[in-house]
């Protein structure tokens, strides 16, 4: 039988490493706000004539939109993000572009005022916070017959915070490379990951609850280890089936749902890992009062280098 429990501090170290890299990346490449959170206007245009990205950029700059973000999104299609355009600005910009670069079709146009953007960002943050509190309360309630129900709730919440941090960090690395912005689909993805991560954690906790009631062993560590091993194939299989569909979304729907699919992809992997290796193992740390070991143990690699 695998000994997962015994290697718990290794798992914590892996997570700490990934999160640390993520935090460094967040500092180096702060997440770019999409227009829903950062306000502005965005349009997708499709030119009839062949147009080069540099040509379009130059043209926009000469029209006074030098700070516009321009990306190619397909054959002759471009994404243009500018400051918030009023109706007149937009009509003017469109006729100027058409005059210089030929006719084009406008596929999509979004415009968000700063006030709306601020409101959206605030409510999204509130939603994530309420989700965490809701999960804490629910799990504490669901495990109310257990000796320390609050431990279960807290560990599940730590695991979900872990997942959110991992997603943010990795997303910032990818965003730094490909210039991705966070939008409302990103937040939707984050909340879906929270639901998914806790869903996984609860399945493992449920098994711990059952094994404790059955009295499998008097050692809490053995009970947790058994529960982890018993639920391992279920955890992996469910994650696999979910990954299949998320990959299909990512590959076949593409850009407009990309944020959502990427967040889920990272989140499902992180969520599976954290429910097995973080949430359950922290239960042991708490049960055995090992929190102090984090402090004693963390300098170890440094000493080993000497």
């Amino acid at each position, binding site marked *: 039988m695998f000994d997962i429990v015994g290697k718990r501090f290794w798992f914590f170290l892996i997570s700490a490493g990934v999160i640390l890299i993520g935090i460094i990346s967040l500092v180096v490449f702060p997440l770019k706000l999409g227009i*829903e959170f950062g306000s502005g206007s965005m349009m*997708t245009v499709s030119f009839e004539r062949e147009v080069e990205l540099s040509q379009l950029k130059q043209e926009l700059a000469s029209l006074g939109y030098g700070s516009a973000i321009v990306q190619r999104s397909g054959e002759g299609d471009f994404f243009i993000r500018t400051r918030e355009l009023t*109706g007149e600005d937009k*009509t003017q910009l469109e006729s100027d572009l058409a005059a210089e670069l030929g006719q084009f*079709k*406008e*596929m*999509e*146009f*979004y415009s*968000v*005022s700063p*006030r*709306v953007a601020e*409101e*959206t960002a605030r*409510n*999204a943050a*509130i*939603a994530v916070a*309420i*989700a965490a509190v*809701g999960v804490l309360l*629910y799990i504490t309630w*669901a495990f109310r017959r257990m000796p320390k129900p609050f431990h279960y709730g807290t560990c599940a919440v730590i695991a979900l915070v872990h997942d959110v941090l991992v997603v943010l960090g990795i997303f910032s690395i990818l965003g730094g490379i490909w210039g991705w912005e966070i939008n*409302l*689909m990103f*937040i*939707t993805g984050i*909340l*879906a990951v*929270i*639901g*998914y991560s*806790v*869903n*996984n954690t609860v*399945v493992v906790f*449920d*098994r711990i*609850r059952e094994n404790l009631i059955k009295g499998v062993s008097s050692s809490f560590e053995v009970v947790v280890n058994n529960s982890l091993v*018993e639920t391992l194939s*279920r955890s992996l*299989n*469910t994650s696999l*089936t*979910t990954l*299949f*569909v*998320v*990959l*299909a*979304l990512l*590959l*076949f*729907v*593409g850009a*407009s*749902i990309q944020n*959502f699919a990427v967040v889920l992809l990272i989140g499902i992997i992180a969520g599976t890992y954290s429910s097995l290796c973080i949430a359950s193992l922290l239960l042991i740390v708490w049960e055995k009062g090992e929190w102090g070991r984090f402090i004693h143990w963390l300098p170890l690699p440094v000493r080993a280098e000497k």
Partner: protein
Amino acid sequence: MTRRNTLVLIIILALFAFALWALLPIEGERFGRQGIRLGLDLRGGIHMVYKADLSSVEPGKETEAIDGAIAVIEKRINLLGVTEPVIQRQGADRILVELPGISEAEKAKRLIGQTALLEFREQVEGEDGEMEWLPATAIVNGQEKVLTSAYFKENTEVVPHRLTGVPILIFDWNEEGSKLSKEITGRLIGKPLGIFLGDEPLLGEDGQPIAPIVRATIIDSGQIEGLSWNEARDLSKLLNAGRIPIPLTAIYEQSISPMLGADFIRMSVTAGLIGIILVLLFMIIYYRLSGVLASLALIFYGALVLALFKLIPVTLTLAGIGGFVLSIGMAVDANVLIFERMKEEFQTGRTLGAAIETGFNRAWTAIRDSNVTTFIVCGILYWLGSSIVASAPVMAFALTLFIGVAVSMFTAIVVTRTFLRLFVGTRLAKKTSLFSIYPGRG
């Protein structure tokens, strides 16, 4: 037991048949629902949110002012002939306008945003000697008032001129307008009367501002000449629809071409199908006969959820499809939990019948508790969606995921168990290797 199982099986098959009947053909009408309702991002259209400036409205009359604005916008949109427009108040001072399937976004926006107020102006010599257009005012009932189309009766019409046949827009003044007009036109005889739409002069067909010379005092009714037929008709309709009583500014705008929407639908259908096929293959390869039964349950699941989307109806957006596709992956979770349990039961040497019953019973608490957390998150997402302007994607995701997970609890538990029970007592039941890959390994 078996008789009861047969009964449940018949109910399930009937439900499946009902779901298929309700769903197919997708575009067909069932219970008054025509096809699956698609969101703006999938069928194209405009989503605008306006903020009303209520500073000039008397306290306590805000609701009235907003309702008035909504009524006017509704009338104007009716001129466009949009099917299923949504015009709603949002929060204290916002108005949401959704026009699905519209391709002339600019025209629609101009029509909604129009002040639709004609203002009459007179030429006055400014300090620098140049002629300036200033609002024509007169004193009525002790107050100085500007002559505008606010004093028109809402029955303007366009008719051909009796002699020349050119279009003329005719209007009647209301009581107050008559007094103002009598006063103003009386003193402007022989001089031009400028007509302004908002701050811009109203331009005629020839591109020149329309500013007729007043020939006689105008008391009851007047006419505007010089517009083309189309312009005159549009203006007349706009004037009859009334004036928006409060200034509106667009704070959120989204317009999507219907062409783009069609692409999204095609791509999401591909993604959904490929996702389902991968999940089915995985389940069948890993769980064998049990996996086949779970796959049947998953197909039933797909039909039932889509039928619900159509009948409720749920407005399907790209995010909503994301939620549905995600729920396919999660829908088999309950089955995975149960089959893993059954595997353990086989290992302790139980028969198929016993393994099914204990497997399902033991997996139940995990299925229940884990799905409740998904429901909590769906509830929060729904709240988030309802509290923000760009609400559609978030709400649709929450709703489709919620329906998906709820239905999957039914299909994965009731449907799969019923199918599995059919094998109890048959010869196949002895071959536990059909139901699990590690049968009876102690």
